[in-house]
């Protein structure tokens, strides 16, 4: 019964996650940027822009310039999350890819780093007056949601072992539309339910910053307005 429920939950969550993201990314891609607005100094070549975007996404360069505390905590969380996500590929692949095996030992500690970073960010949100002022209920709930996902995940690893082989069979089954049995441990059910919630709200929340950064004109435009005429289709009509 529980297995069927979770199977359905994951099908729905995956559909909303992929469908929702597809709609938003298509919207971002199709909306023109009619004016050249890179925050300068900006790269004057396309490869320069790629490098700028890499630094922004992989190193959080702008945040680093701004505030070292937010940078450290945010970086801890995001890098931790990235390693944890990579580690989780082992539950969806058989045989497990070699580089997932490689990540495995780091992935476990990354879970702690992630939760630590999140707790720090939550602390800042509460303690720093400026950030408290701009925080709404959804901002706290989002942090709490991801913290709970992290903690429930760590509990399965370090406190209350789940039959992980069975979980993997369940996941592999889902991918071929075969609903297999899911263990019914509390931490696992909580973990999976919250992950599904996260997937569902991803395309309708501030988590859109993940695709959004790639479409940010201040960061992804080449600084060459004098050399090339840049014009959006709707603006082109005005020339006539």
């Amino acid at each position, binding site marked *: 019964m529980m297995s069927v429920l979770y199977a359905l939950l994951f099908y729905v969550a995956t559909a909303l996650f992929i469908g929702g993201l597809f709609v938003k990314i298509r*919207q*971002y891609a199709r*909306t*023109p940027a*009619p*004016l*050249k*607005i890179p*925050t*300068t*100094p900006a790269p*004057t070549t396309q490869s*320069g822009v790629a490098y700028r975007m890499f630094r*922004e996404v992989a190193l*959080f360069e*702008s*945040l680093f*310039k*701004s*505030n070292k505390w*937010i940078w450290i905590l*945010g970086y801890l969380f995001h890098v931790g999350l990235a390693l944890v996500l990579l580690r989780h590929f082992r539950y969806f692949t058989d045989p497990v890819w070699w580089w997932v095996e490689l990540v495995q030992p780091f992935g476990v500690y990354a879970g702690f780093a992630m939760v630590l970073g999140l707790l720090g960010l939550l602390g*800042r*949100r509460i303690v*720093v*007056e*400026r*950030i408290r*002022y*701009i925080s*709404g*209920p*959804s*901002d706290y*709930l989002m942090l709490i949601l991801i913290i709970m996902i992290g903690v429930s995940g760590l509990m399965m690893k370090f406190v209350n072992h789940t039959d992980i082989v069975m979980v993997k069979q369940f996941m592999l089954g889902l991918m071929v539309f075969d609903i297999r049995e899911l263990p019914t441990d509390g931490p696992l059910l909580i973990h999976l339910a919250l992950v599904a919630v996260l997937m569902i*709200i991803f395309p*309708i*929340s*501030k988590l*859109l*910053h993940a695709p*959004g*950064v790639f*479409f*940010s*004109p*201040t960061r992804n435009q080449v*600084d060459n*307005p*004098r*050399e*090339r*005429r*840049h*014009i*959006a289709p*709707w*603006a082109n009509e*005005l*020339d006539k």
Partner: protein
Amino acid sequence: MAAYQAPPPEFRELPDVPNKLEPDATAHLSPFVAKPEHQTDIGFPGELVDNWEEKAIDKMGELLGKYRSFQVYMDSCVKCGSCTDKCHYFQGTSDPKNMPVARQDLLRSVYRRHFTFAGKYFPKLVGARDLTREVLDEWHSYFHQCSQCRRCSVFCPYGIDTAEVSMAAREIMDSVGHGQKYCNEILGKLQKVGNNLGLPGKALKATLAEFAEEIEDDTGLPVKIPLDVEGADILLITPSADFFAEPHIDGLMGYAKVFHEAGVSWTLSSYASEAANFSMFIGSYSNLKTVAERIRKAALDLGVKRIVVGECGHAWRVAYSFWNTTAGIGSGAAEDDEFAQALQKQLDHNYPIPQHICEFTYDLVQEGKLRFNKEENDWRTITFHDSCNVARGSRMGSWAGGQFDIPRAIIKAAANNFVEMDPATIKEVTYCCGGGGGLLTDDLMEIRVKGALPRMEALNEVVEEQGVTHLAAICAICKAQFAKILPIYKFPMDMITSTHQIVGDALVMTGSIQEKELDGTDDESDEETAGSEES
């Protein structure tokens, strides 16, 4: 006229401590609303339309579809807090709604209510709210306490640019008949007469003749400031403040000296006697284009080969970043782009189009074509204020960051005593003068004074520690703002200097009185006739 009489905020300890928030400290500051004729002159409804709430939401939807920046920035903010302490208006007022993210949220809350699932069904959860009269008034107040300087966007991990958001907000307000008097009135004048002042061609001609005479008295050379000369090589587009305000005029005379010394033929245009384009401040693409097309028309009518732009911050952003897009003034138009090609075929693409006057002077300095007597500037110790729109919205030269190097290089070529302000307040992270973005109006004096605080603090530091006497700028708004603000902060008003005034003061023109004095080729007693002997 200036309503604000209270003393400026006290200087803080540098590096500054984060502010204690003072909610609604500047909620009372709101600029005059545009009168019906100001609105209708530039294509907006005269007064608040009947179903304005609905119209405003429609407009927001339209802008979301037209501007990727607006759409992405409405969605992407995670409230990390990175920008919260970066705005000069926040630093000067402690009003939390002057934190960039909070300013954006004034609009984002309405976006969420009408355009997002969460905002439609769980408004409280995500801070979504309906558009009410109170919200509109709050927009009018706080979106005119943003100078669109983009300092916050430097620090945002997603590059969210509050300037884009405040432009959208102003465009929405304009479209429902609730614009700002200062920007819209000026834009109307510009489109009717050709410049922000409403100075007609005849008066302009007389003024320019006076300046030329003054240069001749000073140098003994027949330096001209030509107007409407067909077939000139260079069209100079400069802010109209250069024709009437101090220290702007001295900058204009500096350009004239440089042009004369370079031996180029150049002209101003009475039809396009304005570099400023406040359309950017109000986010109006159609007005941006209309105004830029005046320059295109002047260039076509006069048959010029090059276009040079005088010292003006937002105008340089518009010229550098938007002229090619909106009016085809630039290079690299597609073969089948008839509109742009019509002009671009006429222009000389061996030079950047448009070219900043500092780039023009810099090239001459590099080529060794300008001779300076730096001692003429020895009585000055100069520091340089990077204008926000030049620093973060444009470039000079062919390399990223040329906009920082080139003005400094020409100041250093012309003067011996140059010092920098605190690195946290210049170049990429420079502070706005406090009067940009359509705020340079007496009805916003209080926010102008308070917003100038970070710049004044950095200036005070170099005045006290390094004896700085002059603040050089390359922006008409910065110059006008500082001329007003410096005395309030107990600095001399004439500290503020045009960069090309420094250039002009040290320039030793060929055949000038200065050259003869310096080289001693002429009897000193002959000084008075030195000019005429040249020919």
